[in-house]
């Protein structure tokens, strides 16, 4: 086993490192987009009565459709319909962002609806507008309280990103499968890739937990946990 590890994994570390970088890049951009899209969908659902059903439709669609369907749909159908995306990497990013934004929208919504009503009333009582109340009072508290759920969604994005290899994005999984298909020795390569994913997600969770714990301790929000 050690022998196979030295033969198939060590010489391909550069390739795996490049794959990991592509994975990190895709996940970072997709997650940032998902946070923005999820927040927008949540705000529209809660505060814009005229079009709230559009937001509900979007959220339900993004959560009810398998990620593989969204990947193939964005990669093969969107260019025909809308003329973009023009690269597989952007197709992967958009599909991951759509899927994750639906879950994040619902996470944000539960955070907003769970906020004690008195917090908003205190803000209105001193003459703050609804938008200022949202920006200064609601949003910071929701982000603090929902931080663990938001980080959890990032881990889901990282795991879901393994599927982008099906549209030929050279991510970590794609590169690993390339090595496996070349030598037909899956055990060491796939085990190594599994370990890299575990370490990546574990590190993300640990860093996020420490940051969240720091702020929860600082603001005395531990009771919400």
């Amino acid at each position, binding site marked *: 086993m050690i022998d196979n590890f030295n033969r198939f994994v060590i010489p391909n570390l550069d390739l795996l490192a490049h794959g990991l970088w592509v994975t990190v890049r895709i996940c970072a951009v997709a997650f940032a987009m998902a946070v923005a899209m999820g927040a927008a969908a949540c705000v529209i659902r809660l505060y814009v009565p005229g079009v709230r059903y559009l937001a509900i439709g979007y959220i339900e669609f993004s959560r009810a459709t398998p990620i593989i369907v969204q990947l193939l749909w964005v990669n093969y159908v969107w260019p025909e319909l809308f003329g973009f995306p023009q690269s597989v990497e952007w197709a992967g990013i958009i599909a991951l962002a759509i899927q994750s934004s639906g879950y994040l929208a619902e996470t944000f919504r539960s955070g907003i609806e769970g906020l004690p009503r008195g917090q908003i009333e*205190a803000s209105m*009582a001193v003459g*703050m*507008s609804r938008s200022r109340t949202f920006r200064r009072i609601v949003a910071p*508290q929701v982000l603090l309280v929902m931080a663990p759920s938001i980080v959890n969604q990032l881990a889901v994005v990282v795991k879901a990103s393994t599927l982008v290899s099906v549209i030929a994005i050279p991510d970590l999984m794609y590169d690993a499968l390339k090595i496996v298909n070349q030598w037909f020795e899956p055990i060491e390569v796939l085990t190594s890739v599994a370990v890299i994913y575990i370490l990546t997600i574990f590190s993300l969770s640990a860093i996020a937990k420490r940051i969240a714990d720091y702020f929860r301790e600082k*603001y*005395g929000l531990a009771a919400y946990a």
Partner: protein
Amino acid sequence: MIAPTLSPASTGGPILRCSNVRKSFGANEVLRGISFEIPAGSVLTIIGASGSGKSTLLRCLNHLEQPTSGEVYLDGEPMGVRIKPNGTRVPDKAANIARKRAQIGMVFQQFNLWPHMTALQNVTEALIQVKGLDRAKAADLGRNTLAKVNLLEKADDYPARLSGGQQQRVAIARALAMAPKVMLFDEATSSLDPELTGEVLEVMRQLAQEGMTMVVVTHEMGFAREVSDRVIFLHEGQIDQDGTPEEVFVKPTSERCRRFLSSALS
């Protein structure tokens, strides 16, 4: 020459006027035609059993609840409605309602301090965001107001690090810093342990002595009797007894009020 328009309060009129206010939640009519006036610098206390409509009335005064009918006037200006030149009344813009609300301080039973802000930030937030003061000026004013409620040394503490009494005093400072025309207190001591109640009542007593116009909903009958200029006893959404503390507490004419007081004081 056109004479300058004077506010009612500046000519000795009421600073707050409540005219036949009714409020229903669905089929449940909580307020059934409440009318009163409060002269500037006086203290009105509202007492009554749970569910009599005290808190709803207070929340109608600053339009946190929109009355179903009737009107509230702050210094002669109607809250929540705009009177057009031809005399018709239309719902006011949210920005105008917010502007008028900023002139009415409110202190809640549950304090409602913002947990992600320090005591000082809680006090300065509206000064910066609503009144448009720069940060340095707001911080100066915030510290002065915290000093007034004896909490200057807690300025940089977050609410979670403060006792209930301290949190409520910060909440009073938050309302006070806006230099309101009227302060509303909604059972400000009901969530506090008995040993913490005194420090909050002391601040309220001090405000009353300084001439702050106050509307106080409370179960602290001793405090109400000592500080109030006028006391209203609410029963099922209507004013059942109305008078000076002497008239209400010593010789109430309403049998319901007498029963309420005897159970509240026993």
